[in-house]
């Protein structure tokens, strides 16, 4: 069956370190993969999108990689801050499919 998996366990890191979150998928050939941030009691907020023919994308302290051979995307936050604490969701769109398929998200806690 088709599915997306993210680290199910919460990730705790020290302020200033790099956080790395994983998104693995099976039985998809996604055209695009997206990362969102969700804070408690709020809707997801779009962060970054990466295309199937891109290896890496950066935005300020954020970096996303996309390995279609491994069927995996990695999301990095460098120089992490307590304000980065949130749940991070990955979502993918396969081909011309009009809907996004979502992972369950990984909870990140950055400790001061």
């Amino acid at each position, binding site marked *: 069956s088709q599915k997306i998996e993210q680290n199910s366990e919460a990730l705790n890191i020290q302020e200033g370190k790099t956080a790395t979150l994983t998104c693995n998928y099976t039985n998809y050939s996604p055209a695009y993969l*997206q990362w969102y941030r969700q804070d408690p009691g709020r809707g997801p907020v*779009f962060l970054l999108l990466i295309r199937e023919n891109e290896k890496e994308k950066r935005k300020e302290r954020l970096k996303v990689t996309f390995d279609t051979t491994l069927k995996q995307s990695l999301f990095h936050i460098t120089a992490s801050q307590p304000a980065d604490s949130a749940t991070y969701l990955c979502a993918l769109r396969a081909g011309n499919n009009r*809907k996004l398929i979502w992972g369950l998200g990984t909870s990140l806690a950055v400790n001061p």
Partner: protein
Amino acid sequence: DTAVSQTPKYLVTQMGNDKSIKCEQNLGHDTMYWYKQDSKKFLKIMFSYNNKELIINETVPNRFSPKSPDKAHLNLHINSLELGDSAVYFCASSHMTGVGYEQYFGPGTRLTVT
């Protein structure tokens, strides 16, 4: 400026009642969505409209009926509410012609059925 807004933010009601949730976006997007996020935090697409046309209709009980009067508004009406309908409902919007359909979400409506 609010991009995607939903009303109400909280909705507490009894089983069997009928309720509606409203959504409006001022981003000029042509596509709107309804999602349900359950207690396990899984985001499940329910419906999507593009320029008032229903384009995604997932396996959802027919007690749920979306309605899009124009491309800036998408409402969700729920009949005969059940305990299992308790969840957070998110409205979202995007450009259908956008590169990856990146979506912009409203603040959510927390529905509690007692």
